[in-house]
């Protein structure tokens, strides 16, 4: 059976002055079934670098990453755009919503390359907002939303194309405790409801408790 995520011996080094820093040093793991995986570790352990590799925001120096059977290295630019749009959702710590667009339009943005009519795109975006209980704020711009509400919109945007995998980089990092808990419950519910796999980089103990799998990183390696 094709694994949802398969990471083999991924390495990444950065040059800092004369020194070479190993951000990732032979990381391997596999997610075969839909799951919520937390990637934990101290700052500088390689969590964000690993997420960047999974979303192909940057290339590994060596190793192989397969997501839903697709080897990321082999994808051409337009295939990569298509992969990020259809197979992958990404949730940022700072939400990264487009400030000039409403919540509905921000979600609709992820459907820009779909072969849907404008009416269908609107309906899909509205459904995604409803899924995260944000339908009542659909016409508000990010500046008119609280942090938790913005993160919900970001989650709706990540899920609107129904990807098999959603990657989240510290999604609760900028939220207060209560709001963070609500977002985590939402993620857990969506995982159960939609069968979406979530990979979440976090420092948050609650995320690790919620996650079925926890991958601990330390100095770019999987900690024992």
């Amino acid at each position, binding site marked *: 059976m094709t694994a949802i995520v398969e990471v083999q011996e991924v390495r990444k080094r950065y040059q800092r002055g004369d020194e070479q820093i190993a951000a990732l040093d032979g990381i391997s793991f596999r997610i075969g079934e839909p799951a919520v995986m937390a990637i934990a570790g101290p700052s500088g352990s390689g969590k964000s670098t690993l997420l*960047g590799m999974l*979303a192909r*925001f*940057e290339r590994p120096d060596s190793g192989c990453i397969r997501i839903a059977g697709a080897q990321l290295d082999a994808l051409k*630019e*337009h295939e990569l*755009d*298509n*992969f*990020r*749009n*259809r197979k*992958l959702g*990404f949730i*940022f710590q700072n939400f*990264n919503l*487009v*400030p*000039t*667009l409403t919540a509905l*339009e921000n979600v*609709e*943005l*992820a*459907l*820009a*390359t779909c072969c849907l009519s404008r009416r269908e*795109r609107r309906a899909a975006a509205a459904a995604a907002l409803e899924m995260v209980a944000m339908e009542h704020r659909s016409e508000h711009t990010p500046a008119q939303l609280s942090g938790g509400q913005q993160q919900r919109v970001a989650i709706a*945007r*990540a899920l609107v194309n129904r990807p098999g995998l959603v990657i989240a980089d510290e999604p609760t990092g900028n939220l207060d405790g209560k709001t963070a808990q609500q977002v985590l419950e939402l993620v857990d519910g969506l995982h159960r409801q939609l069968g979406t796999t979530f990979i979440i980089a976090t420092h948050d103990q609650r995320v690790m408790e919620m996650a079925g799998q926890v991958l601990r990183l330390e100095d770019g390696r999987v900690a024992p």
Partner: protein
Amino acid sequence: MQWFSLAHRNVVRNGRRSMLLGGTIAVGAAALLLFAAYIAASLDGLRESTIRGGLGHAQVGAVPPQDGYAEQQLQFALDASQTARIEAVLATTEGVRRSAPRLQFSGLVSNGPRTLNFQGTGVDPVRERQAFGAFQVLAAGASLQAGDAGRYQVMIGKEMARRLGVSPGQSVTLMTTTVQGSINAMDLEVAGVLATGVPELDLYTLQMPIGAAQELLRTQKISSIAVLYQETAGADALSAGLAQSLGPGIVLRRWQDLAPLYPQVRALFRNQFMVFGSIIGVIVFLGVAAMTLTTIYERSKEIGTLRAIGIPQAMVRRLFMFEGLLQGAFGAFAGCALAWLATLVLNSAGIELAPPPGRNVSVPLYLLWLPQPSLAIIAVLPLLAMAAAWMTSRRIGAMEVKATLSSN
């Protein structure tokens, strides 16, 4: 996704910068349009003053001689039967407003102590005044009188009058070669002093009744008939039709052919407009390119987000192109409005410009607003701004998603 709507919101969001860039484009566009309006007014004025100042829309004459001597020209001048035929055609041609017979000659003019060269024209005082009187400026005295009362009157240029020291009421003697080759002279009373605005012309110009001129030259012929149409628009078509109707031995010369300076001035203005327009174009291009580049760096996180959710590079660039298009369109429309208002204000201000080279009369500043340059500005500047944004946004392709997301 409504990319155009997003572009519009981005332009509005960066209001101050958009205003600054739009203002730069607008000022450039307005400057270009005012320049175009000034050129249009200058060309229009030059054309109409050339035509209505005496040249006419066309001149009808005999087949021209191969050289320019007046006495030889008169050998090829129009005789009475040809003149009558031409007058009959002109009288029945729709669009012809006035016609005035002319007899061109040259000779010497003297008041006794001083003698000068002159370029004389025998005219029908009534028909000449009706056709071209509105553009004739009298510095002193009066126009030629019609009939016997004015038969031996003459009008001379202002500079000629000054050099000869004569004024209206005094007499001068004209000497010239007749068509037979003998010398003839005639005393004439100065009726008026002409001011053409061109000192050189004022030194040589002289007008007298055509009957007296024929008597002086001992001929019954005339050199040409100047024809004035109802309007300048459509003059070429009317000239072509007239030329067909006039028959053999008669030639019609259009005003453009008689005033070779006009197409040269027009070409000069056109070249100046092209150079100035190119400079404005470069300013717009560089302005939009600089702003797009700045915006790309400032909004790199937004660009990274769009790329991270799978929006292709081409679509992101399209967003910046639309923003450039909007900036260009805003600037072009604002520039047109600004130029239009400035035209109204300047035309009503009654500003007098210094006399142009070769003239001694100041010229009122007048701008002729034409829709074509504005339409061209509105069509070209937004596209130019869009091209600048498209060129600059290539930078996006060189940006790694990771790097853009971690910026700011």
